[in-house]
């Protein structure tokens, strides 16, 4: 079995209420998912809270992991990333973490040369296509995914109208789609 098939099989067993498979799945994927939650939230306590929520959700919804086209790790990462972004947004609006500043929009630009050594084909294509976008738009896409930036935050931090930001970004997303499907 490939690692992907192994995780898929564990998810299937979890869907049937197999607790041992649940623990195996946790041991196998927990460190990556905790890393993702930490990357988004940057605080141990919040990331632990999210990881707990994610695994409760996995236990309860493993049966819904079906032929929805997601690979198993993508499903797990997407569930984790979405839960972390929700928590981050609540923390931002509740003042638990700092609001978005203009500097955040410029932080973490699209990766440079190291992208060329990435083995994964999809990752390589994504980074190659992001480089075809204006750098600030590529940073927005990445910032939305990893830092939960919203249009309102981008607009406020860059002193641009929300509608304008959205129009730009949607154009860039279409350009990205075109490049990815080449």
């Amino acid at each position, binding site marked *: 079995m490939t690692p992907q098939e192994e995780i898929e099989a564990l998810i299937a067993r979890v*869907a049937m209420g197999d607790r041992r498979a649940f623990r195996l799945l946790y041991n196998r994927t927990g460190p*990556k998912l*905790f890393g993702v939650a930490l990357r988004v939230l940057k605080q141990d306590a919040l990331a632990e809270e999210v990881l707990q929520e994610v695994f409760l959700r996995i236990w309860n919804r493993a049966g819904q992991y079906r032929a929805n*086209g997601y*690979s198993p790790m993508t499903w797990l*990462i997407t569930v984790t990333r979405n839960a972390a972004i929700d928590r981050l947004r609540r923390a931002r609006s509740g003042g638990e973490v700092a609001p978005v500043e203009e500097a955040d929009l410029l932080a973490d630009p699209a990766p440079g040369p190291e992208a060329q050594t990435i083995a994964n084909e999809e990752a390589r294509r994504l980074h190659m296509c992001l480089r075809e976008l204006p750098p600030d738009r590529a940073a927005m896409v990445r910032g939305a995914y990893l830092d939960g930036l919203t*249009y309102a935050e981008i*607009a406020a931090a860059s002193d641009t109208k929300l509608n304008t930001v959205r129009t730009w970004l949607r154009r860039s997303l*279409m350009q990205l789609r075109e490049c990815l499907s080449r």
Partner: protein
Amino acid sequence: MTDDGIPIESGDLPGGAEAAAAEYVLGLLPEDERVAFERQIGSDADLEQDVAAWAEYFARFTDPVEEVPPPPQVLRRIESALFAETKVPFWRHLLPYLLGAVAAAALAAVVVMTGLIGPGQQPHLYADLVDDDRGLVLLAHWAPDSETFMVRRDDGTVPQDVSYQIWVIPDSGDGAAPVSVGLITQDQLTEIPVPDALIPIMTGGAVVAISEEPLGGSPTGAPTGPVLAVGALDVRE
């Protein structure tokens, strides 16, 4: 909402639903558009594929993220939230004894009067298995006297290109692994003679599950495909 308070329709923006699929995965859609979009993907397979493709690509942003072992208390908290025994008021502990005494007396009377129920006779067990998405309605039935496991198909069909596999998860309380019982046949009634080794797991509370597998069943001995339906074995009137 726009900054001047006028709601914007994503239809007026460049990219239409295709751009909205990317915005959805990035979490950028305003709440009302997100709700509408989720409704739309339910009935639009192309759009659903777009969403899956974006999710796959954007998840690559997490490739450079290092693994960090979570502290041990996280798993403890998760498992106790999911599997901890629920607290029972103390007087409830008495209830089984009270009911048991009544039932034992009643049963003794039946045995004496009819002489039909021999010691050690096991009850028949049933589980309803329903998959709304596929319109599949099944009834699992364990017949201990003939040592046969049956699955009656009351609605839905079994596709020709995949197998539906029957699993039983023993009620051992420690989350034992599913055990394969066999495959659902194209007949309305699937009858599977159960080998002696599996008879002890056919108890009330054991869970029956149906998974979709490659033709001929799971190649690994453990379920690999999506789980269609799950139900616990129980006695019926």
